[in-house]
């Protein structure tokens, strides 16, 4: 048995420490060529530790270590059902992507920057996953934000169109639909910060009202009751601002699309097990301990879960529809991720009405999605390398040269969309059941939204396969040789889907969740939905582009003009406010105060001090004796009064 604290220390710190050498050696090309292996090794240690935590059954439970005494702020880690799996998922995916990155990032102009932030990203997510203390979680949360900014804007020189998002010279109204990597990094960090601040306030509010910040120990029910309906809703809205911005739910999803300006490895990590998954995962974790299905009489909670349910479902639909019109490899995948994350939120929120089972559905869908989506991203990266184009393209001839990529794409797409009897089908069946159960409260709206989303989703992933390997135009450039480690990366990644399939089909899992999945998979409704998805997938495969819908497609591909929110409305509002602050705040108050009053006072005092100092002794004597006399007279007067 290893001591628990050593396990945690290795888990969180090795990725960071192992990437410090390359960060320091940034000037030496010789070293930066070799040191990435050390960084990957660091992540591998995290994989081992997370597996250790999962496989040693006695490891479950809470571990607390002192940090700031008497404040409720401590290093508290929780190993429970969700975290033990999520930890392995995070570490494993990061590790596979890191292997892939050894090839993919070869010859990059700043490997030190990349590896340091990549490993920091992984470590931050692990911290978010395992920490039970909300404050500690927030530390990891901010680490994610910082690392995502560093990685999305990695190619900060903005000098290569391959790293851009959007089409050059295309404009919609006043808005250029073309985003540079540095813009992408900025859009990410600004959106996330917009949500982090309210989230921080929410944590502060919980801190003020609850004796502990540990998610598993907070008395959620009495907290909500003491806040009342309005208080609970406000608290959650603040908290959800953080989760929704991080997870790119409508209307905060724009940053995710332009996050595709980062290296593909980053997109893969961002979309599967970190960052966007972080928001959904924290919501899962909170729901796990709040147990909203037992708190129906608590005022305000139902409103909160209704909001999450519909934000999730709408994000799901929006993402799928946007993806249907997209022609860029990675941005299409980004839109589909947003859609999937929306479904995770929706399923988890449904637990308020359906119960614990819905949380399992949300979580296992996240697991399947993580590996499948990471595989697809890695393939997309390889394709971009091979064709020097970020747009969908490549026919059968090309597919023959890229057989592993082709096969992995087939597996990842079919296993993810939910066609029977492949992996995602079982968890999607669970989701069908959950949404159907909501008909008492919301009619057929939830299930209808889910089915429509699923069908379009199947279509767009089929389109990804079709346009890249079957029906796309022949690429102008083809560099299909090499890339051995890249292939290793995505083959390993996609193979995990078979492991999960095995779990779903042949084991029972905690609380017989997998048996329940299998049961739901055999229900008529699920089968009908599953077959429809299969049909949608085939349609997408055969007709990846339908010219009759091209105008609608362009509208969807422009993300329904949502970029206006980020790049126009927010921008103009921001500039308006900053102008007011500048004109009236800075120049009026600040400028006057800082450039006139303070220096004026300093000048006067300084002049006063120096004017005495003329070097003349008799003058000094006069001053000091005068002062002493005045002081003594005052002292005697006061002494007389006090006496």
């Amino acid at each position, binding site marked *: 048995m290893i001591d628990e604290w050593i396990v945690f220390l290795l888990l969180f710190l090795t990725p960071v420490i192992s990437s410090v050498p390359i960060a320091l050696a940034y000037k030496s090309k010789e070293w930066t060529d070799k040191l990435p292996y050390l960084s990957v090794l660091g992540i591998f240690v995290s994989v081992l530790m997370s597996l250790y935590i999962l496989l040693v059954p006695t490891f479950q439970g809470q571990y607390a270590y002192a940090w700031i005494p008497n404040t409720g702020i401590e290093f508290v880690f929780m190993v429970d059902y969700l975290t033990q799996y999520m930890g392995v998922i995070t570490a494993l995916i990061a590790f596979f992507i890191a292997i892939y990155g050894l090839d993919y990032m070869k010859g990059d102009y700043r490997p030190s920057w990349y590896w340091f932030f990549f490993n920091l990203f992984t470590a931050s997510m692990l911290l978010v996953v395992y920490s039970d203390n909300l404050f500690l979680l927030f530390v990891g949360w901010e680490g994610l934000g910082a690392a995502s900014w560093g990685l999305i804007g990695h190619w900060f020189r903005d000098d290569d169109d391959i790293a851009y998002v959007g089409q050059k010279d295309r404009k919609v109204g006043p808005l250029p639909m073309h985003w540079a990597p540095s813009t992408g990094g900025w859009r990410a960090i600004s959106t996330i910060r917009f949500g982090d601040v309210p989230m921080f306030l929410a944590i502060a509010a919980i801190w003020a009202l609850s004796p502990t910040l540990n998610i598993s120990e907070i008395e959620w029910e009495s907290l909500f009751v003491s806040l009342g309906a309005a208080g609970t809703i406000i608290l959650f809205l603040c908290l959800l601002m953080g989760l929704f911005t991080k997870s790119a739910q409508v209307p905060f999803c724009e940053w995710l699309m332009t996050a595709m300006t980062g290296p593909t490895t980053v997109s893969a990590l961002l979309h599967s097990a970190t960052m966007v998954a972080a928001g959904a995962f924290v919501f899962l974790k909170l729901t796990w301990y709040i147990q909203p299905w037992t708190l129906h009489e608590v005022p305000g909670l139902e409103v909160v879960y209704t909001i999450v349910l519909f934000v999730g479902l709408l994000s799901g639909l929006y993402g799928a529809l946007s993806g249907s019109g997209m022609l860029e490899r990675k941005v299409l995948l980004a839109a589909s991720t947003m859609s999937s994350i929306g479904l995770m939120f929706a399923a988890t929120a449904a637990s308020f009405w359906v119960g614990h089972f819905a949380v399992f559905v949300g979580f296992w869908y996240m697991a399947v999605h993580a590996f499948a989506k990471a595989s697809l991203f890695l393939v997309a990266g390889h394709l971009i390398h091979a064709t020097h184009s970020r747009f969908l393209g490549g026919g059968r001839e090309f597919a023959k040269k890229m057989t592993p990529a082709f096969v992995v794409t087939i597996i990842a797409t079919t296993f993810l969309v939910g066609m029977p009897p492949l992996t995602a089908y079982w968890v999607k069946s669970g989701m069908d059941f959950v949404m159907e159960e909501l008909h008492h409260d919301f009619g057929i709206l939830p299930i209808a939204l889910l089915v429509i989303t699923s069908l379009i989703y199947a279509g767009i992933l089929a389109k990804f396969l079709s346009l890249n390997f079957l029906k796309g135009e022949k690429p102008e450039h083809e560099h299909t040789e090499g890339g051995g480690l890249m292939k290793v990366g995505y083959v390993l990644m996609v193979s995990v889907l078979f492991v999960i399939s095995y779990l779903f089909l042949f084991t029972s899992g905690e609380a017989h969740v997998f048996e329940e999945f299998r049961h739901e998979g055999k229900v008529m409704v699920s089968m009908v939905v599953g077959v429809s998805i299969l049909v949608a997938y085939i349609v997408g495969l055969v007709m990846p582009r339908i010219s009759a819908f091209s105008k609608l497609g362009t509208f969807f591909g422009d993300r329904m003009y949502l970029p206006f929110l980020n790049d126009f409305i927010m921008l103009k509002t921001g500039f308006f406010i900053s102008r007011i602050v500048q004109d009236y705040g800075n120049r009026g108050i600040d400028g006057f105060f800082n450039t006139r009053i303070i220096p004026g006072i*300093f*000048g006067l*005092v*300084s002049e006063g*001090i*120096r004017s*005495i*100092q003329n*070097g003349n*002794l008799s003058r*000094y*004597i006069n*001053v*000091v*004796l005068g*002062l*002493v006399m005045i*002081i*003594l007279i005052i*002292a*005697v007067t*006061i*002494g*007389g009064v*006090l*006496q």
Partner: protein
Amino acid sequence: MITLTMPLMLLGALVILTFSSVFSVKYRDLGFFGAIAAILIGFAAVTLANPALIYYTGFVVIISLINLVSLKMIKSVIEGVDYGLVGLMALVTLFIFSTQDLAMVLAAFVLVSAPTYILVMVREGGANVEVGIKYITFMVLATVLFLMGALILAYTQNAFSGLLYILGYVMLVVGLSIEVGVAPLHEWVPDVFTSADPIPMSIIASLAKIVPFVIALKILISTANPLTVSITLFTAVLAAISMFTGNIGALTSKEPARILAYSTVANMGYILSCVVVIVKPEFFYFALTGALLMLFANAAGKIGFFTAIKNEGVYSPLVYLLAFSFIGLPPLMGFWGKLFILISLVKAEYIWLVAIMVLNSAISVPYYLRLARELGVGWKADLPNYICVAAVLIIFVTFWPDWFFKAMEVLAQTVSIVL
């Protein structure tokens, strides 16, 4: 046995000091080694009698030895005797915590003050008489006020009178202020600091500052009564004025010696604010820790900076470290000094003074950095650089000051006089 050993050993040290000074007229090095021997004997005497004093005496010995060595940098006309003067100041400073007798305490005040009258005039090839006159005039005024204040306060212990107490308190504090250079009674400081030789100045600005504060604390604690709470405001206001005057003066000065002069005014303000903590005797040990750390940090910093001025620059990282200590960056001694003073002021519920002190620390940042930039040059293996290395080592000793704080907790019990 021990009670008798200490006076005898100190007497021996004084005899050695006297004879070595006298014979140094003929054999110059004798004064230097005699002074070192006397200081070490004094250290042994005081520390053996009261082992709890070891940290205090240790710092004093190191500072006085550096002072002695730094005198080697100039060829004064009284070379030999000047070592004896520093030795005498060091002996008195070592001894000060070991007596609770009013007469001894007042004698100590004069003994530590008088040698500086001569030191201030020391310069190469002659005497700096003009500076001497300026300095001595103020010192005499300070001494008179201080001694009278002390005696009046002592008198009130036998026949209490509120009027007399307040008069005595104010005279003592005003005397102390003139002696160490607290604004607005600091007029001599900028002139003397800039026109005297930097090396003797480094002694006056370091070693000579410790004893007056300790004596003032001893007398004020022993004579405290319900009126102290009201009159303490006077000291607090004085401290605040001194902080602002010192820091703004330094911020708007160009000449390094003048900046150091105003920095002394500011630092004396910080240390004077410890006097207000007398109203909360149970937290006095915080103030004592802060005051002594601040005095030692100030001593180390002044020695380093004045040596740098004399040498027209020393190794750049050294002066920067000294500047950081003055600014109050952890874990340097200047930080801990300020921190403990601030804690003691918080405990004494003088929050406005805390705010002023923090604000002043911020004001001081630019000029210390400017000083470091102007006085920093490349490394050279010579005496001034080694002196600065020693000064920097001092400010690093308390990087974790727990041990010092614990020792001061014990020492704080003895800060009093028997009346």
